[in-house]
């Protein structure tokens, strides 16, 4: 608990002082920049809720980073896992967009879902860019609910599968060959980024669009939006629910305790007769899947498709977030909000003043460098005591 408070203090202190310093150094319009950075993200409902939406993928990634850290694995493949997850989710969503009209037309045999003509019309509109509400209303309520839950869920699962796939080889290497995942996870993720880059920019690119991106996913697969005009969807709530579940698992279950002890001391865990082989395997996969979930959030929430280079350093930021929360699931949402605010503030400052958005990256990096330090007052005290002993 004490460590957590110390780390939060370090992170907050560094973030605020660095942001202040950068604005004083780089900006010619201090007042506007300061206001944009510190106030604007909270100033109105739309920007605030949009910031919350952007925090959802970061929270999911941080959950993945936390699982890896807790089990003593240094997962550096977050970027590629997230990116592949996003790609898989977009692939599933695009497939739905192709299949649903066919399903509605009864072209597919055994399409028991689409019963009456009204339901078929409804499915056809569901798959379109803009679902008409009157057609939706024609579906029986049960079917409507089933479709609204099943399609987004399917794509989220596809995203998780994508992240898991990238984490699979490192996990297998760790489980069967004892290969540390520090290097393998990074290498595989790098390869995954290159391959997905190629697929999004080449074979699967939506040529109707100037953006280097895939075709938009089916509207039925997108997460429901809660408060237009802000981009808020249910993604932050899903992420929070997963966070709560992880808290239960880590702090209140026997397996979570085993995992934590294994992460702290592998020999001890082996001597205690814990299932060390499982513990060298499943946490790595879980980390990959959670990163993949974050990618799915990006696709099904804000973007509506997979865009080239969309991971944007989230996988690295997540390591910082997990460290700030000192690997405590309960503190993770708070730490996530800090980094999400940092991103939102930098974006606002780059729009409303002359501050480049890159400063959020720089500040995050400095926070990561500083976060594991003993606080200054402790090291000073330690020195004084050492001096007195002499």
């Amino acid at each position, binding site marked *: 608990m004490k460590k957590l408070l110390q780390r939060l203090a370090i992170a907050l202190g560094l973030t605020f002082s660095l942001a202040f310093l950068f604005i004083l150094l780089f900006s010619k319009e201090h007042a506007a920049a300061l206001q944009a950075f510190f106030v604007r993200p909270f100033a109105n409902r739309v920007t605030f809720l949009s910031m919350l939406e952007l925090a959802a993928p970061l929270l999911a990634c941080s959950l993945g980073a936390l699982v890896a850290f807790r089990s003593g694995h240094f997962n550096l493949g977050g970027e590629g896992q997230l990116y592949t997850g996003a790609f898989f989710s977009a692939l599933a969503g695009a497939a739905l967009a192709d299949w649903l009209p066919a399903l509605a037309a009864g072209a597919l045999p055994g399409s028991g879902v689409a019963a009456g003509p009204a339901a078929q019309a409804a499915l056809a509109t569901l798959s379109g860019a803009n679902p008409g509400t009157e057609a939706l209303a024609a579906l029986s309520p049960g079917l409507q609910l089933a479709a609204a839950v099943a399609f987004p869920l399917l794509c989220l699962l596809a995203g998780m599968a994508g992240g898991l796939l990238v984490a699979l080889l490192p996990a297998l290497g760790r489980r069967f*060959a004892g290969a540390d995942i520090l290097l393998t996870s990074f290498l595989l993720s790098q*390869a995954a980024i290159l391959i997905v880059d190629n697929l999004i920019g080449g074979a699967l690119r939506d040529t109707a669009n100037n953006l280097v991106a895939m075709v938009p996913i089916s509207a039925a697969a997108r997460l429901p939006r809660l408060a237009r005009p802000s981009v808020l969807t249910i993604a932050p709530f899903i992420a929070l629910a997963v966070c709560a579940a992880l808290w239960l698992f880590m702090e209140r279950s026997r397996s979570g305790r085993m995992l934590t002890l294994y992460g702290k001391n592998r020999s001890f865990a082996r001597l205690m007769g814990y299932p060390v082989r499982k513990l060298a395997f499943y946490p790595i996969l879980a980390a990959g899947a959670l990163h993949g979930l974050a990618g799915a959030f990006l696709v099904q929430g804000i973007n509506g498709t997979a865009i080239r280079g969309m991971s944007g350093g989230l996988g690295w930021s997540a390591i910082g977030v997990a460290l700030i929360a000192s690997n405590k699931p309960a503190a993770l949402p708070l730490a996530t909000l800090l980094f999400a605010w940092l991103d939102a503030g930098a974006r606002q400052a780059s729009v409303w003043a002359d501050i480049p958005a890159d400063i959020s990256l*720089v500040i995050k990096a400095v926070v*990561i460098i500083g976060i594991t330090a003993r606080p*200054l007052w402790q090291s000073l005290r330690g020195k004084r005591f050492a001096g007195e002993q002499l």
Partner: protein
Amino acid sequence: MSGWWFLLAELPAGLAALAPAALGGLLTEQTGYLNIALEGLIMAAAFTYIAVGSLFGPLAGMAAALLVSAFLAYTTDLWCRRSGADSFVAGLGLNLLIPGLVSLLSQAQFGTKGIVAVQTLQSPRLLAALNLRYSDLAAFAAIALVAFLLTQTRFGLRTRALGMSADAVRMAGIRPESVRRNAYIASGVLAAFSGIALAASIGAWVPNISAGRGWIALVAVYLGGRRLGGVLLASLGFSFLLSAANRAQSYLTVPAEILAAIPYILTALVVVGGSWLRYRKAAKKQAQD
């Protein structure tokens, strides 16, 4: 036939961009505190070479690049030793910090976040036929010097001793902190030679110019069995792999990104394979005992 010749001709340049950094990684690994910020250091040196070189000429750029990289490595290590921060996490932070800082500085000096080409900073070739430049020679000289230092001098002995037993080093009256500091400074200097070789071979700063070389260098340290000869051999193998992937672009219809991904996948497989062999050996030994 000519394809093979081109491949061999590319090899020195590839080696010059990788081997110094790998040696830097080896030095820090031998003290027991691996410097994982090589990627960032290469990038920092490459940018400094272009940024300072464009103002004061290539030699000044080179000197500045060496100084900046050494200073970054030194301060990070100092910070970790003084504050008790985790050196892995701090190194990771440095790897993130440098692309961000470079982007800011590039915008301040050149007004762009993108490619900055300064023709005068391209190091001339030794021979027209061979892709070997003076900057590559500097890198090889650095490699030779460090190989000598590591094997023949007190500095090398102390570096290797620290990784084996910090207590023994302390008992011998040597401060482990200063040995670690020296290794980190040397790793910064060596990574800088890699960065300079990269930037001087094209005479330009390109965002993400290091393209994962710092990480591959770490893999070379690991695959080389943490020994000088092994690390150099592994670097040679990786340079060959990278230039082959580069070269294959002009012969195959496979997209460039897929070809670029292959070295990463192969490397990961080699790491897992090597680890598996070691794992099995250990298991056999245990069974015999």
